[in-house]
């Protein structure tokens, strides 16, 4: 409830401010949170993105959230000796580990193909590299497999018609980050289109980081891994002895 009130207040403030801001910049946006902390009770996060724009009838808004880039391995299974086993793998690098697109209507209707390609408003225009052959000559099925599986895991997601525009001035969109989201800096891009042309854009950043016990455990495991292993054993030894101690008394 408190966050709701906070959000409404912020929207009102933005709306009031926007009258003066419009003069030089016709798009103002903000996020309800700019950092997401992955604590030991983390199960995904909802971030409210809201903004005001100097709009006319039939203007469009597109939001693109992109995470850090990394390497993804695609494995292909084939039936050998009656068993399905991995027979071929291709490593794609420079892959956005998270990519989310939202808009107020179908992107194809908002703008043209070259703009979609330039602004990466679908999943087909990433500059990927792979370890096998030149990307252009790679069999399409490999990229299709990557795309299909990234979508299935909710790492790549597109929601057209999901942004509601209010009186050509206000919009809001809840960005739902999945629980298995990777850490790092996320880029939030808000694009304002009029008759297919980009007339203004805004960028924000969301920092996703591990905090608390969860972060400490991760750091110890990475930096003092042998000590971590010994601690893990001691903890287990203690619990084993302790339960025996308790149950002997019962």
């Amino acid at each position, binding site marked *: 409830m408190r966050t709701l009130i906070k959000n409404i207040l912020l929207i009102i403030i933005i709306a009031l401010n926007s009258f003066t801001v419009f003069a030089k910049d016709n798009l103002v946006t903000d996020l309800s949170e700019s950092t997401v902390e992955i604590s030991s009770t983390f199960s995904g996060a909802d971030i409210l993105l809201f903004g005001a724009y100097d709009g006319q009838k039939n203007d469009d808004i597109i939001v693109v959230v992109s995470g850090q880039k990394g*390497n993804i391995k695609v494995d292909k299974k084939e039936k050998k000796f009656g068993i399905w086993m991995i027979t071929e793998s291709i490593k794609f690098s420079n892959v956005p580990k998270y990519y989310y697109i939202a808009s107020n209507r179908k992107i194809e209707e908002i703008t043209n193909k070259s703009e979609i390609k330039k602004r990466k408003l679908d999943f087909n225009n990433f500059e990927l590299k792979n370890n096998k052959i030149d990307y252009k000559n790679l069999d399409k099925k490999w990229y299709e497999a990557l795309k299909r599986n990234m979508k299935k895991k909710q790492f790549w997601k597109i929601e057209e018609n999901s942004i509601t525009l209010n009186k050509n001035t206000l919009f809001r969109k809840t960005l739902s980050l999945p629980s298995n989201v990777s850490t790092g800096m996320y880029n939030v891009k808000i694009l304002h289109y009029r008759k297919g042309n980009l007339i203004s854009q805004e960028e924000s950043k969301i920092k996703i980081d591990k905090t608390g016990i969860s972060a400490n455990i991760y750091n110890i495991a990475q930096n003092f891994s042998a000590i971590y292993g010994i601690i893990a054993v001691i903890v287990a*030894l203690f619990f084993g002895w302790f339960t025996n101690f308790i149950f002997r008394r019962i």
Partner: protein
Amino acid sequence: MYIYLPIAEQPINAFIVLGIGWLVGIIMGMVGIGGGFLLTPLMIFFGIPSPVAVASVANQLVAPSVSGVLSHWKSGNVDFKMGTILLVGGVIGSSIGVLIFNILNAIGQLDLVIKLSYVIFLAIIGSLMFIESFKLIIQTKRGKATRGKLHQHNWLHGLPLKTRFRKSKLYISIILPLIIGVIVGILAALMGIGGGFIIVPAMIYLLGMPTSLVIGTSLFQIIFVAANTTILQASQNQTVDIVLALILLIGSVIGVQIGSKFSNLMKGEHLRLFLSFIILLVGFKLILDLVTIPLDIFSISVIQ
């Protein structure tokens, strides 16, 4: 209640994991084996990456094993001399196992090898256990339970380095328990199991140890094999999720205590018949997964 796992990097329902650990603990306490080979596949079904599942289950195995050994020790059911020889082999074996684990992971066939090893061992051990316990039950019902020699003499008894194991009433070569220890150690590291379901039949059928000593002695050696695997996996692969292990072990140590109280209510052969069903079921499910066409023949994984 969801808890975020720092190493697996995902949240998990703590109560469900606690419950699974508890149930598996009960089976473990009743039969003395079966912690890892049920927990590891279950954790993989929950979406935990298989290297993390294997390493964390090895970590949790330390706890119920300690707790079990302490109970069996009190009743005088641990052959420490035999256990020590087995664990020396086990520590060597688990070090080799972690090495194989790393190689398989690097060439991308770890998952397949884990599953195939499970299928082979579950099928063999499950059917042997089933036949054996079924025979015993039939014999007891007919009332002509034949008691043969304490154990059969075969070529294994001709090996050098013979030692007397007073507790087990055996005079055998240390080479055989050492080799059994090594094999179990390799499997422990590869499959995230204590190796109980291999070592228990091996101790009964190959070494000829009295059944009463088998569970306590195998648990004794599992402590060291699991501890060695945990430290090696943690230091080489950073795959031990202490939070996952902790939730599992709290469930399982309580389960083991309850299970070991129940074990006096049921006959050994009935228990083993019951366990053989579970073993065969898990094996069957794994075969099914390997031979049926996958939903998507392509799969992805994030790599460094």
